[in-house]
């Protein structure tokens, strides 16, 4: 059963930046915050060659992978065409300035 876990305060994630979360079961998860203060979480592994997405540039609701610039849609984990693939998204929510992840 998945449960909501408190991760950090939203202010701990830089705007247009990320934090890396490590979970026993899921491994590295990338937590992003965009300029509209939306928060997203996806597995920190690019479907191309495993690049750490947490280290990419965030724009809109997308991150550009630091290794070869694939673009990944953060809300559903889908890769932006012409590339194809997807990465696992994790449910996140923000309540009273606290970020929760469902694992």
């Amino acid at each position, binding site marked *: 059963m998945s449960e909501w876990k408190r991760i950090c305060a939203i202010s701990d994630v830089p705007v247009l930046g990320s934090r890396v979360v490590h979970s026993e079961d899921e491994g590295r998860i990338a937590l992003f915050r965009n300029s509209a203060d939306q928060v997203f979480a996806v597995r920190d592994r690019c479907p191309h060659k495993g690049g750490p997405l947490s280290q990419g540039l965030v724009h809109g609701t997308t991150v550009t992978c*630091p290794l070869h610039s694939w673009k990944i849609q953060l809300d559903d984990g889908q890769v932006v065409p012409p590339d194809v693939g997807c990465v696992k998204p994790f449910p996140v929510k923000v309540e009273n300035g606290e970020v929760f992840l469902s694992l």
Partner: protein
Amino acid sequence: MRKQKLVMVGNGMAGVRTLEELRKIAPDMYDITVFGAEPHPNYNRILLSPVLAGEMTIQDIILNDLQWYADNDITLHLGARVTEIDRRNRSIVATGKDGQPITVDYDRLLLATGSTPFMPPIPGKDLPGVISYRDIKDTDEMIDAAAKYQHAVVVGAGLLGLEAANGLALRGMDVTVVHLSDWIMERQLDRTAGKMLQAALEAKGMKFKLNAQTAELVQGESGRVCAIKFKDGSSLPADLVCIAAGIRPNVELAEKAGIHCNRGIVVNDTLQTYDPRIYAVGECANHRGTAYGLVAPLFEQAKVAANHLAMYGIGRYQGSVTSTKLKVTGIDVFSAGDFSGAEGTEDIVLHDPGMGIYKRLVLKDDKLVGAVLYGDTKDGAWYFQLLKDEQDIHDIRDNLVFGNSHLGDVGHKGNSLAASMPDTAEVCGCNGVCKGTIVKAIKEQGLFTLEDVRKHTKASSSCGSCTGLVEQILASTIGGAYQPADSNNKAVCGCTDHSHGEVRKAIRDNKLLSVADTQKFLAWKTPNGCATCRPALNYYCLSTWPHEAIDDPQSRFINERAHANIQKDGTYSVVPRMWGGLTTPDELRAIADAAEKYKVPTVKVTGGQRIDLLGVKKEDLPAMWEDFAKAGMCSGHAYGKSLRTVKTCVGAEHCRFGTQRSMDLGVKLEKMLFGMWSPHKVKLAVSGCPRNCAESGIKDVGVIGVDSGYELYIGGNGGIKTEVAQFFCKVKDDAEVMEYGGAFIQLYREEGFYLERTCHYLERVGMEHIKKRVLEDEANRKALYEKLLFALQNYKDPWAEIFEDKSGGIHRRQFEIIKV
């Protein structure tokens, strides 16, 4: 607010492109209604030639299918001709497919009615079997006739006429081309090239009759045309006559509505007609006296018109230089610019009849103003670029006619390769894209620009070394429709229409201090830009307003945020600075200790005279830096668009040949430039004598000691395309090296476009420009040098800044992992 109504007349290439651009930037602004007299959705008219030649089908050339109009919420009336514009009431009247009138109101009207073929007033021009070559209907009729009849005559040996003749010949007809002038394609080719082309086409079975004045078209018994008679009394049998005698802007509708027309609907730089609510784009428009007949300029117009319709109001269309290519398989002809040989021009001609090669370059004041190429057109795109950029070619003049591949020794631009490459050949080594994939994408997706190809295939989107090759493939696949963007005006990326130059200027003129401010000021189309524009904007703000602009770490590539180089497995590499390549036992010990303490898997000597620790975990970086700081070491910026290394040789300090103390000067230069951000990385070298052991000849700034002082070289590059540095000047001592070298670097920092190395910058602005600013103008040189020193004042080693940041600030936080 009520949505505005936009009505478009003419459903062709220029008009629909305008709508595409408009939907991209202002998707919800207008209710759009389109009237097209043809019964087809928008198709690629250019490709009617391959359709006639049997190389493609009509299905292949549809650009926007009906679904596209539906998806974009566009009301489409096909087979409906607009007959009237009521400007007072702002409405139009059309005759629908069923003959019924349709009336629609508009707030803005877009005229994109194209051209109509010119029909000379020859008796018999209205007979069955006499057609023009403009649309799908004409093409179908020709295909039909080719199946039934034998003799075809094409009137007019321009691009269109020859492509028609070629297609008809390929479909088995006996084709004669009749032409008024002395040689064929006289508007695009000079006499020599025209004659060579004629011979090649004759070898393919086509016949020509030049200096021929048509007197009449003769009706046969069936009622169809059967022959063509000339003024000299001769005649030829003809079951099909295709008239390709030129086109006329289609202005009928506009003229009737009282809109000012003069060989086209007259428009201003925002593509508005005399009535500002009414725009005109495409072949029907006359801009500054020119009505264009090729798609590339029309697409530029479309972009500006869309921009203005969206009320951005910033783009202006300023006219285009066009180039021509004939799309007849196996024959290569290219021409661009003005080759009439007017006063003050000089010709460079290379003519090898045996090889079937002819090249004529027309120069004026050390600039290329025209080019005609026959047989070997692989350098066409390159010449065209030189021409459009108005680049000074003085320095390359002696080899100019031999083409681009003869200029450098490593010539990776690959211009000579494209045509002869097999489909399976790899074009883009970074993304593994082969030629076939690119050609297929261009054809199937209807791509016209380098950006499009990048987006759809990724080819040339990484290191960019294959850009030239991809442009070549584009040019050879879509022919004359390809228009290389002129390098000064290319948009930064898809998030904006502004070029690097315009962005730099806006930042300077309006004192924009941050990425976000700049995006807001210039009405960026995306919420936060993208990985291409943000780092560029951040650099432009920082370099224009040192100590005032607000650095945005989130707009920097990860390497510049983590102050180390990301590796393929997500770990990092760390390169401490070794000033001028010098080190000490203590430093080496500190490196050895760190390597052991942090279990560094690989320690390597770099190509830049220092040591790299590869495979460090990101979490360990701050601690490792702290250890280095204690040993007196700091960041080597092996990761940044910044000063990298100053390579030195041992020099007069030790070497028996040394004339100058190169290590000394190297260290001084490196300390001076420490922490400098620049458009791209910057590398220097100092050699103690002309034996040049520090390889100064391939550095951004190379210094070579000679007996009487130093020689300075600039714009060298040892990377993707090896570029030898050019001699800049001779100076007398260390202080002058720093001043002259520093001034050049500052000029590059102020004028360079992001990701432009000094060699590309130099190529763009020309050596003359740099000499004027730095050598000839002493006050300016000193000012540049001052500005450089000012910008670099109080720079703090980024490693120290991060590990000292104990407050748990953003710097520090990015290195810590949250465990759950």
